[in-house]
């Protein structure tokens, strides 16, 4: 009996450990493609910015940073229809008339960013009368489910298939198989094949990371102490954000006193920031790879009775509100959720035989003190993303959880 009790207890321990390590990447704000498993690499806080990420690709970095200043083509008031440096591709072969059955394989709706985006897409679909049927399957963040979802959708008579891949490498064969049967539109995270008719996403992680870091270099005096907060290591879209920030910080006079992982957890973020404030007496700037826990970081300074230093957040409502209310020195790079509208528009263009950009790069604005008021919408819920491009869509604001 005694033996079996201890065995049971060990089982509890193992089981609980299993649950705990199954931590979803759900809180990764933007497109948390779990392309690579958690890497073992840890940044040593004492060593400044540490080693460069193995995800860093110089050519992509250069391309993205250049794209930030390029004028996007398309209607000025509809950034989701704009494209940067479009290389058009012919789609005459996909032309069809009549009703459209549009299909969508979604990686997940398990975080606020994807929730806002998913609502954008549904509202966009409702704008187009020619879409008589819209079939969407949610892969719930699981690669295997998404592979079978895609196979299922290709057998359902879809006229076009939109895919938001859960991970890059694993979903590639499934997307390739689908390309044989229907025109495929991929957005957010990519796949390692050019068989989709178009791949849609904003400029990307390097631009996001650099926007924040450059702001701190500008606002924090030389020698200032920077704390960099990351969600978790090993995820491509987050690694690119940090690696671009690292390049910027390495060239600057700022001292990065710590690079810490928060798991996207508000309490942990608050604890980490408090610890750093205690240890260093003062932190002069906070860089973050995603804004979900920015308010927790701000509160850590408030609770310590210190002024909030220049900080990098994202376009989430709670952060923008705090920024406005406390008149912070802040910037919000974005990974706009309006990109969820574009695939629907692209699908209809393709089915009309109109050409579309092969790589559809959407503009990726940043929110600054100058345009903050334009993006701050006090009637929207705290976790809403301001760059939804959804203000004129049917059902706004109620369907997005807003009031009024």
């Amino acid at each position, binding site marked *: 009996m005694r033996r079996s009790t*201890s065995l*049971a*207890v*060990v089982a509890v321990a193992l089981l609980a*450990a299993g649950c705990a390590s199954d931590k979803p990447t759900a809180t990764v704000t933007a497109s948390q493609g779990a392309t690579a498993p958690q890497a073992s690499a840890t940044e040593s806080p004492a060593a400044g910015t540490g080693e460069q990420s193995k995800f860093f690709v110089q050519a992509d970095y250069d391309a993205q940073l250049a794209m930030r200043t390029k004028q996007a083509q398309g209607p000025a008031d509809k950034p989701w229809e704009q494209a940067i440096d479009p290389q058009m591709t012919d789609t005459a072969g996909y032309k069809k008339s009549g009703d459209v059955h549009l299909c969508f394989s979604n990686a997940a*709706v398990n*975080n606020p960013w994807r929730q806002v985006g998913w609502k954008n897409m549904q509202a966009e679909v409702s704008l187009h009368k020619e879409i008589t049927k819209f079939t969407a399957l949610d892969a719930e963040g699981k690669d295997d489910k998404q592979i079978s979802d895609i196979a299922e959708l290709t057998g359902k008579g879809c006229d076009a298939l939109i895919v938001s891949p859960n991970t890059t490498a694993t979903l590639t064969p499934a997307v390739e198989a689908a390309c044989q049967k229907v025109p495929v539109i991929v957005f957010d995270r990519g796949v390692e094949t050019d068989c989709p008719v178009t791949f849609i996403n904003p400029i990307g992680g390097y631009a996001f990371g650099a926007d924040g870091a450059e702001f701190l270099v500008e606002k924090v005096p030389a020698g200032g102490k920077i704390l960099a907060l990351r969600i978790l290591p090993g995820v491509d879209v987050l690694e690119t954000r940090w690696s671009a920030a690292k390049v910027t910080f390495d060239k600057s006079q700022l001292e990065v006193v710590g690079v810490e992982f928060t798991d996207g957890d508000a309490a942990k973020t*608050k604890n980490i920031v408090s610890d750093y404030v*205690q240890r260093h007496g003062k932190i002069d700037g906070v860089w973050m790879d995603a804004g979900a826990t920015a308010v927790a970081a701000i509160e850590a300074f408030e609770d310590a009775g210190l002024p909030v230093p220049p900080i990098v957040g994202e376009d989430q409502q709670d952060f923008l509100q705090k920024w406005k209310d406390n008149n912070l020195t802040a910037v919000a790079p974005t990974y706009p959720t309006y990109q969820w509208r574009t695939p629907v528009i692209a699908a209809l263009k393709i089915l009309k035989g109109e050409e579309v950009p092969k790589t559809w790069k959407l503009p990726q604005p940043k929110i600054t003190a100058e345009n903050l008021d334009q993006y701050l919408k006090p009637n929207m*819920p705290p976790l809403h993303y301001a760059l939804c491009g959804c203000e004129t869509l049917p059902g706004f604001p109620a369907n997005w959880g807003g009031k009024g």
Partner: protein
Amino acid sequence: MKYAIFVVLVLLLAAIALANPFILEPAGFLAFVKRAAPLVILAAGQYFVIVSGEFDLSVGSLVTVEVVVAARLIDGNEAATWPVLALLLALGLLVGLVNGVVTTLLRVPSFITTLGMMLILSGAVFLWTGGAPRGALSQTFRIFGRDTLYAVAIMVVVGVAAVLLTRATYGRTLIATGDNERAAALSGVRVTRTRILAFVISGLAAAVAGIMLGGFAGVSAQVGQGLEFSAITAVVLGGVALGGGRGSVVAAMGGAFTLEAMFTLLNLYGISGALEYTLQGVIIIAAVAAGAVQLPRLTPTPRKGDAHAS
């Protein structure tokens, strides 16, 4: 020996102080206590369940439920704070009651009951929120976890209440139940009622911890993740025997402080957060292994009535 954990705690605090002397100042120490408070409260609740010979694996997801429900119902409205607080405490009591009744009256092992409850609650939260919590907490709600004095005061009140409860008749019947269920029943202890009450206390503790964690850092659907494991580790660290019948609630709370000190130390030395789980896993296995190998020889206490049967 019973309070050996406090020696470990003092050593850890000294190690923290080497890297961060601020913890020696009153404000720094209170900040540490405030950070540990939710886990201390959870460990106190978990103590009652473990010492009665059971487990409560549902507390982590119960904490998440409490925070997500609070945000949705309060939705930034100060006036809603107090009614919602009452509702949250009632919810904690209810979940504990269900755990207790299913475990005792339906004779489902508590491991399964509370594991099932954990899955039910996390699934329900996901369904209700779709993965992203809605609404906002009010300033009044947040003060309990955010304001250091409130947080420390709540922890002290809960701690004192837990100690008084273990010193009362209930505490003795609880230990008797965990130590030897049959003997306890034969000597007139209402074993079923005692165990149900232990689960109810644990549920209530989870509700209080949830209110404090929500207050500390705001709304998050991940807030309770892994807390059941931390609470069990803390209790085991405090020398409470898994399987029941031995241990003190003060040591269990000391275990929670110790665990929090370890986390702080790991953080201070820049060691990845993933190691926290590894550390907890090692502690729990080592503690149980040590208990199984050594303690029986030192104290040949018959447990759960088996010794009489053999």
